[in-house]
């Protein structure tokens, strides 16, 4: 029996190899590469020279690093706080089987199809202070300088939420549909109204969907590069220069790959920290099963 198990274990392990090879080469190795490169000096073209803690000192002493870190944390917090309640409500709404809701669902998911570049360009023209929607309709309230220093950051966060709410709505729709109908029937017999049903049944039952969705959202918020890059390029000034953009600008604009790698280390640590934190909040013992059930 033992030998039989072993003999079929080997070919199964082989099946993982192509996937593992790609993943290790282009994801795991670069992750360690980031740490190594953060101790070097490299302009992106010439030789890579050892630089000790030089890049670290430079980055840690630069106030822009801390501004970018702050903007990144704000991005995480605000987009999570905006997207989560809206996605839960929309997901619950779409889980209903009314026909008009199915139709609305088809339209709700349209933003999923647009690339970040397309969304950024569309909203940039929409928010244009001279010819955009507000200016064209001659509504003063809507004719703000939306992408100016004051408003650019909140506007960008709103557009990010607009882009990603559909995906999370989808997750919650699936989550709500898996809640046993009997729970609602029992609640109705007990005279619970919709409000109570939502808070006493739907929300608690969505616990694991909330963990999954939040993990993806928080880790994802570290990677909102494309949209901000096309919409504002980190500006005006440095008003929207989140860490991912800061890394790109340092590495590929200022040709300081060492400094960019230091920022990359920040990003990795933040990402892993967020993921672990969310899992911990959701209950330590459930972590494994939750991740497997994701």
């Amino acid at each position, binding site marked *: 029996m033992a030998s039989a198990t072993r003999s079929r274990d080997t070919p*199964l*392990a082989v099946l993982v190899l192509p*996937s593992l090879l790609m993943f290790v080469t282009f994801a795991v190795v670069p992750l360690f590469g980031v740490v190594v490169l953060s101790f070097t000096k490299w302009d992106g073209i010439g030789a890579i020279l050892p630089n000790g803690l030089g890049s670290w000192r430079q980055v840690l002493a630069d106030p822009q690093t801390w501004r970018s870190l702050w903007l990144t944390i704000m991005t995480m917090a605000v987009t999570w706080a905006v997207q989560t309640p*809206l996605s839960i409500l929309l997901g619950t709404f779409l889980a209903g089987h009314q026909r008009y809701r199915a139709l609305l669902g088809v339209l709700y998911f349209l933003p999923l199809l647009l690339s970040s570049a397309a969304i950024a360009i569309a909203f940039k023209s929409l928010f244009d202070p001279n010819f955009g929607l507000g200016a064209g309709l001659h509504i003063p309230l809507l004719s703000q300088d939306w992408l100016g220093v004051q408003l650019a950051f*909140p*506007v960008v966060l709103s557009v990010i939420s607009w882009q990603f709410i559909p995906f999370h709505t989808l997750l919650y729709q699936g*989550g709500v549909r898996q809640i046993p109908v009997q729970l609602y029937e029992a609640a109705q017999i007990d005279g619970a109204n919709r409000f109570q049903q939502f808070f006493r049944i739907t929300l608690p039952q969505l616990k694991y969907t909330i963990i999954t969705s939040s993990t993806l959202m928080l880790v994802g918020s570290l990677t909102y*590069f494309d949209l901000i890059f096309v919409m504002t390029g980190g500006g005006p000034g440095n008003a929207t220069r989140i860490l991912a953009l800061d890394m790109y600008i340092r590495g590929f604009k200022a040709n300081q790959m060492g400094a960019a790698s230091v920022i990359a280390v920040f990003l*990795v640590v933040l990402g892993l920290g*967020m993921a672990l934190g969310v899992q911990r909040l959701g209950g330590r013992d459930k972590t494994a099963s939750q991740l497997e059930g994701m």
Partner: protein
Amino acid sequence: MTDVKQASTKNAKSVRDTGSRGVGKPNLLAGFFGWFWLAVVIIPIYYVVVTSLKNQGDYFTGNPLALPIPPTFEAYQEVFANKFGTYFSNSVIVAVGAVIPIVLFAFMAAYGIVRGKGRFLKFCNGLFLMGLAIPIQATIVPIYLMITKLGLYDTLPAIILPAIAFGQPLSILIISNFIRDVPKELFESMRLDGLNDWQIMWRLAFPLTSPALVTVAIYQGLNAWNGFLFPLILTQSPDKRTMPLGLWAFQGEYTVNIPAVLAAVIVSTVPILVLYVVGRRQLLSGLTAGVGK
């Protein structure tokens, strides 16, 4: 505009509830909220569509939400005179070149992880799960270094290879959930028929997980199609631009011609829209079953 809307959403939020199960009397509040959200989603898209059908004069002077009567296709001519054909075929190559290996490799790995035992497979599973938590952007500098050393800078494989790697974790997760749902008895009966693991994988697991495979293919195809950062740092010549990068370059050149820029937005989205119309049910149901448990 969005800010205003979100503020008003928040006021309604505390009382908004959803009689989502479709029982009892109609839920007016939920209905109102649903139509309101539709406006939030549709108005920007509607704006893009109508503006792309106007000429520049109308754009500067007319009501931005007015229907373009008669519609003009000047903007689209502008777009097609550009290199969007090249961008389109580059994006197709990147998407297909990434998706086929992603699905194939991830399927084999998922099968190995679900059906096999042993420390090595456990370790791989853990590694891939951890991969979900890593912000891909963080690896751009080493990836740029590797790609230049491999002599692949400014080629399409430069975009494809990292995409295959980063597509693995989520794909393996979704597919292994489907393989777990296949009743054990089916595997056992095929084994009793004398089939080995390799045969069982292709004859049993592959057809039974095909919904998940289609889901993964569409989802990863979408990612590859819409990817921006890797094409940005790993290519430079206009001939190698993918659709989003081409779109970005186009709006850089045509800053003043907004109808043309927005027409380009539409042209870049139409292929995906077609895919969505064809595979919507598959994509949405697969995603919810695979990720949203």
